[in-house]
């Protein structure tokens, strides 16, 4: 699978598709002239940049990965809304129940894009914020931190996202 | 509908005056003064938008906030000295 996604034609095709999609969204119209101009400009840019886009070339392209992407998006939006309700409760309560601390979270993700997405997701989920990215771990700031146990924190913070990102990027 | 734009422009005017005062009176750190100057031009671009000039707003955001802030920070990193934070 990786042989296929890392060859040049796939990379350039991905870049071309992303550029064309961006152009159409920027114009907010799907007319003939928009698409023609977009195809020409996107082809020129694709010819100039041979390497393509990294976040497409790292991704796997099998049915499980596509399914995992959608499940990941749903889970992410659910967590984002949960995070905001929790934060609203903290902000509105009169005596501010917080106990901040920075905890280490281990991750097995290898590809840079997968780790970027994991760090971004942790930043937007309940009471956690990625501070620094190490070699095999992330340092996460928590609003409410009861114990400094690394394994327990890994289970609680990262496991939900890692399950999907594992399938998407490996 | 016009009262919405009026409220927004009043809030923006307050923000612009506060940002400009901060840019002038930030004695401790040069970075804060540059940041405040960038903030003033960002608010100014929203103000231009309210006044009905999207092209001017885009130019203001690009030149006033983007280019000037980058240039100032580039120069600040080169110069160093005369600053105590």
């Amino acid at each position, binding site marked *: 699978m990786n042989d296929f996604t890392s060859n040049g034609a796939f990379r350039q095709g991905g870049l071309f598709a992303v550029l064309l999609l961006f152009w159409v969204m920027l114009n907010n119209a799907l007319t003939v002239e928009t698409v023609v101009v977009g195809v020409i400009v996107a082809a020129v840019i694709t010819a100039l940049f041979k390497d393509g886009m990294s976040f497409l070339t790292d991704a796997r392209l099998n049915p499980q990965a596509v399914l995992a992407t959608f499940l990941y998006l749903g889970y992410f939006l659910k967590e984002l809304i949960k995070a905001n309700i929790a934060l609203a409760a903290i902000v509105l309560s009169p005596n501010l129940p917080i106990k901040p601390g920075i905890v280490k979270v281990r991750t097995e993700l290898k590809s840079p894009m997968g780790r970027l997405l994991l760090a971004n997701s942790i930043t937007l989920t309940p009471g956690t914020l990625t501070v620094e990215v190490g070699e095999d771990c992330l340092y996460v700031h928590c609003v409410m931190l009861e114990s400094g146990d690394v394994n327990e924190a890994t289970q609680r913070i990262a496991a939900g996202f890692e399950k999907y990102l594992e399938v998407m990027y490996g | 509908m016009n009262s919405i734009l009026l409220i927004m422009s009043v809030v923006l005017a307050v923000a612009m005056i506060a940002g400009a005062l901060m840019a002038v009176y930030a004695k401790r750190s040069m970075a804060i003064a540059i940041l405040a100057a960038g903030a003033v031009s960002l608010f100014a671009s*929203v103000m231009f938008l309210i006044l009905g000039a999207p092209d001017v707003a885009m130019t203001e955001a690009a030149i006033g906030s983007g280019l000037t802030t980058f240039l100032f920070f580039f120069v600040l990193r080169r110069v160093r000295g005369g600053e105590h934070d």
Partner: protein
Amino acid sequence: MVEGLLYLASMLAGAAFLLALYRFVQGPNAVDRVVAFDVLTVISITAIVLVALVENRIVYLDVALVYALLSFLGVIVIARYLGKET
């Protein structure tokens, strides 16, 4: 009804803007001010969307896009500068 709700939304956004502005002026150290600046720019994007709704012109959304890009780059530059210090 819709107009009233739009009015309420712009009032709330203005209040949020003023609160963030207070933190921007007051902030004890530089990082606090940069955080407040980030929040101010995101609220400004919301304000641009509200202006576009009131004036009923889609061109205004381009400004929101440029704004988001530039404020992001500005915050990155400032944060790198502050991180290099000390």
